């Protein structure tokens, strides 16, 4: 059974801090790892990582994948209160075009002013 483990489960920081969220996985025939941000309802897509060692960036957010050690990190620099959300990590197996996602439990990030 595929496993996705996120840490920490929750994190409280002050505005301006930098945070690193972790995601480790065990999956047969790994294809890609995805990060989502879940505020009130829908998970909102952040990054899709397929290749090891290539950093993806979007504004203050960045993420990288290590396929040898089977983990990914999501960095948020200069955090703002609007970054408060649950951050979800999910993996996709290769083989076929089905792209079923297996999610971790998420990291609840709270950014205080």
């Amino acid at each position, binding site marked *: 059974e595929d496993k996705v483990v996120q840490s920490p489960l929750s994190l409280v920081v002050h505005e301006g801090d930098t945070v690193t969220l972790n995601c480790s996985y065990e999956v047969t025939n790994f294809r890609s790892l*995805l990060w*989502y941000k879940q505020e009130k*309802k*829908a*998970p*909102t*897509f952040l990054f*899709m990582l397929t290749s090891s060692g290539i950093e993806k960036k979007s504004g203050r957010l960045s993420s990288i994948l290590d396929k040898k050690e089977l983990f990914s990190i999501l960095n948020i620099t200069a955090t703002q209160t609007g970054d408060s959300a649950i951050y*979800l990590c*999910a993996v996709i197996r290769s083989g*076929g*075009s*089905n*792209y*079923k*996602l*297996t*999610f*971790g*439990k*998420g990291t609840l990030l709270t950014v205080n002013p």
Partner: protein
Amino acid sequence: EPEVTQTPSHQVTQMGQEVILRCVPISNHLYFYWYRQILGQKVEFLVSFYNNEISEKSEIFDDQFSVERPDGSNFTLKIRSTKLEDSAMYFCATRGQGAGNTIYFGEGSWLTVV
């Protein structure tokens, strides 16, 4: 940015009743999914649908559940006889064709079974 649209946003139903949740996928997307999230728990895969048939389903997706795309636009999830434990947020998700295409989620339908 294109959106996946779900209705209703919230439904309260009595145990044993049938419920239909609807999803309008992003235009030109061909792969459709239902996921659910019980309060405080992980997002869980229910079913994937492509070319008018189920391509994969989880253990959760038993005979009480069905999916269809009756009119070529709406993608529906039907729960025939709801149970208390079906109370959850149900997310529709869709994906375009091609290896680099990611999966986009709708806002969710919050189902409460009483």
